[in-house]
């Protein structure tokens, strides 16, 4: 049985804390290197892992994730490599979802992707440019294979759209804390709290907050009102900053994870 996000969120909830959700793109600095990096994040306290599928046109990503994704593509990372990373990470027992723009899934074949993701032990998919009203094919495939469907809600979403979106989600709901692309920010958003409250009013699913968190203190702040804290660019930045010394990069990744894991525990 593949590890599920539901179990991870229940465990965190039983411990009276939010879950830490960590993101890295597959294939940066290499396929093996990304497995090693993500495994370090798992060891150091990530409860759920998001494996990014590098894409040529990532319109929701800021410069940090763009840079790593582009490097991963230039190094030849393929969709099948992403599934290999998922398989390796899921084997640690940590629930692993894929975050991907839509076209690579459509090209791979929606049903085939769902089958292969489930086969690799993946827990589901986060789809930043696919909303439920455009996602009938994915919803059907995810249902067939028991995969999480994680759609995004935004501060600009109407109450009607939040209700529609959370009703279509399985696993958890991804609340984008800011109006903007991915990237570490020095202050957390004052839009996130109200958005989480609006989402929680429509669903019993865990609601996680992403976009902008990079420190334990920010994680603690977000953990005070959200069920999960999603961190991406800060991890990627750490790897990019140690591009010439992978061992130091892994050590720094561990330290950052521990800081963030401490943050979600002191909320």
């Amino acid at each position: 049985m593949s590890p599920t996000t539901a179990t991870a969120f229940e465990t965190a909830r039983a411990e009276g804390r939010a879950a830490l959700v960590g993101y890295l793109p597959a294939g940066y600095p290499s396929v093996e290197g990304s497995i090693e990096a993500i495994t370090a994040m798992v060891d150091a306290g990530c409860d759920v892992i998001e494996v990014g599928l590098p894409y040529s046109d990532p319109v929701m990503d800021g410069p940090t994730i763009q840079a790593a994704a582009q490097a991963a593509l230039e190094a030849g990372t393929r969709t099948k490599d992403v599934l290999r990373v998922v398989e390796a990470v899921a084997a640690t027992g940590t629930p692993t979802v894929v975050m991907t723009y839509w076209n690579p899934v459509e090209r791979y074949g929606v049903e085939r992707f769902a089958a292969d993701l489930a086969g690799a032990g993946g827990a589901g998919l986060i789809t930043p440019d696919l909303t439920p009203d455009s996602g009938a094919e994915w919803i059907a495939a995810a249902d067939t294979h028991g995969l999480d469907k994680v759609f995004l809600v935004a501060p600009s979403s109407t109450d009607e759209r939040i209700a529609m979106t959370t009703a279509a989600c399985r696993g958890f709901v991804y609340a984008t804390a800011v109006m903007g692309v991915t990237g570490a920010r020095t202050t957390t958003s004052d839009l996130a709290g109200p958005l989480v409250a609006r989402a929680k009013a429509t669903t019993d699913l865990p609601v996680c907050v992403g976009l902008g968190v990079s420190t334990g203190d920010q994680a603690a702040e977000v953990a005070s009102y959200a069920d999960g804290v999603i961190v991406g660019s800060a991890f990627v930045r750490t790897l990019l900053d140690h591009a010439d010394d992978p061992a130091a990069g892994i050590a720094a990744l561990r330290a950052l994870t521990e800081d963030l894991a401490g943050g979600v525990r002191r909320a």
Partner: protein
Amino acid sequence: MTQQVSSFDADAQGYYGGTWGGRFMPEALVAALDELTAAWQDAMADPEFVADFEAICRDYAGTPSRLYHAERLSRQVGARILLKREDLNHTGAHKIRNVLGQALLTRRMGKQRVIAETGAGQHGVASATAAAYFGLDCTVYMGSVDTRRQALNVARMNLLGAKVVAVDSGSATLKDAINEALRDWVASVDHTAYLFGTAAGPHPFPSMVRDFTRGIGDEARAQCLEQYGALPDAIAACVGGGSNAIGLFTAFLDDEDVAIFGFEPGGDGVDTGRHAATIHAGASGVLHGARTYVLQDEDGQTVESHSISAGLDYPGVGPQHAHLAQTGRATYRPVTDTEAMDALALLARTEGIIPAIESAHAVAGAIEVARELAAEKGPDATVLINLSGRGDKDMGTATEWFRLGEPDDETGEPGDETGGPA
């Protein structure tokens, strides 16, 4: 609801033929796209807005553009060639129609800032122009490869008061400029309108851009009937994203006897892989918010496109063109860089008109079509070409391509041909 424009309209969700188009966008932008959809539909149903748009196009941009019988070219080809002179519009291309419409809508929506992407710079210049006209702040995103090959247009945008941001990510061309503009918009959507430059992107952009450019075809159809008493046998336009093409095609979509041709940038030749012939050589996919034909690899990663024409150098295409291609209502063919440049030179020498390299693709393809039609119908066969823009901006490229400015005749010193002094 908007009025039906042709039998090939999108449904309420923006899908053409149930498949093409749609809205594959981050949730953060959905509210803005819904707001834009409502504002556009409301505006198009408001006679005052429509009258304002027509007046600005007429008094400021110079429409209706003329329909011109290119007699010398016609004689050379052996069929009647009509040129819709969008190259004579203010700012030198059809793009001005679209931006004046979108900027007028922006003002109606109460937003103060516009952003735009640009490839060749024509849409950027048009956007900067409209922003100056309406007093709006304007930022234009342009791939850094394009800022170099279209430096004159960067200068024009600066002079018009727009900020030009060179985009280095990805392939640093039009698609990456769109990515960067979308990133700006996600963060600025409450006070910023995105003036999308072509009939692509998420719903409602393909239909809205069609509404603002369809005057080309409406005018051309009426002019053709008035001047020649009949519709043309065929109409032709170049297709990158496809705004000038859909602007021409729309009025003729339900005229079953009018053949419709779109000419895609064939670059070095479709079989070389260095081209931007999306419909001819792409596959169904999702790019920039719409399902359409996309140049992509087997993993769905967008493949870099190539064309001598920056304005056609785009790996996607407007979704209505995908629909028209699939239904067979329009025929899309590739035209290579060489064929386009030959047509550019031909039009310059026969008619004294230097077209944009984009439009030269339409001229090249249409000449072939005209010869085919003339073989069948004789010299009265009529092909109407949308001459979407003028070639001033392309003189650098043309100078290099044709080695212009070099001495024509290298006769050399007397005695050279005999091998020099004995």
